[in-house]
């Protein structure tokens, strides 16, 4: 769809605005993997409330929007084996590299952090090679769309 990029841009602006509020109000970097990771490994014990509030809103708001608008879309491969392997890789990878799209990509690049830029180049490169190999050459990944309707920019693959 030709208007897809507008939703992507609007969603991106909202994510950036969220990161800006998190930084200016709480003085913290909004990184999804770091916020979750701190709960998992116990390093975030001193600000558990902040982490849980962030995650609760991140889950509840899209759910309410999807409910109100009668659906939402997300893309995920239907191959459960790949979902498990992919999830493990994302979990291990984001903890090793200390960030993901939000932390390294959004918060890191915007302050011209070398670490953020290097990490983003590596994960986008690895992601592109993986998609090229598994989807276009081997044809293993078939993206399944759940509950199509609501165009919510931040749910698109690639963000």
């Amino acid at each position: 769809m030709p208007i897809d990029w507008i939703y992507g841009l609007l969603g991106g602006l909202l994510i950036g605005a969220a990161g800006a509020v998190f930084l200016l109000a709480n003085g913290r970097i909004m990184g999804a993997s770091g916020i979750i990771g701190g709960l998992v490994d116990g390093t975030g014990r001193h600000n558990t409330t902040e982490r849980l509030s962030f995650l609760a809103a991140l889950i509840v708001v899209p759910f309410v929007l999807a409910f109100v608008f009668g659906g939402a879309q997300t893309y995920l491969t239907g191959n459960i084996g790949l979902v498990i392997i992919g999830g493990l890789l994302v979990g291990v990878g984001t903890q090793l590299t200390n960030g993901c799209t939000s932390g390294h990509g959004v918060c890191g690049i915007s302050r011209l952090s070398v670490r953020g830029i290097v990490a983003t180049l590596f994960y986008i490169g690895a992601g592109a090679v993986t998609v090229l190999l598994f989807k276009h050459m081997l044809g293993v990944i078939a993206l399944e769309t759940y509950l199509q309707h609501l165009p919510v920019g931040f749910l698109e693959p690639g963000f």
Partner: protein
Amino acid sequence: MGGAIVPMAIAWQLTRTRAPIVGGAFPAPTDAENTPKLAIGSVFFGMGWGLTGLCPGPAMASLGFGGTGGLIFLAAMLAGMIAAPKLTNRLDPATA
């Protein structure tokens, strides 16, 4: 991501002359630590992202309507996060 960087860049500019509303200090840049961990972790993350189409933020955001696949992804991601420190010790004992 391009759209998200714009408000964030403005926010970083504002941090030069302000303090966080709740007090404390803004996080300092950590550019000194460009360890192999950063590159290897990013490659792992990128591969998982490419395979599934999900990174941690959207994985959480789509939990409410993402179906069983979304829950399985989250469980695997949490397992990976728990396992990561053990891997870190082997990869990079000095900084673990």
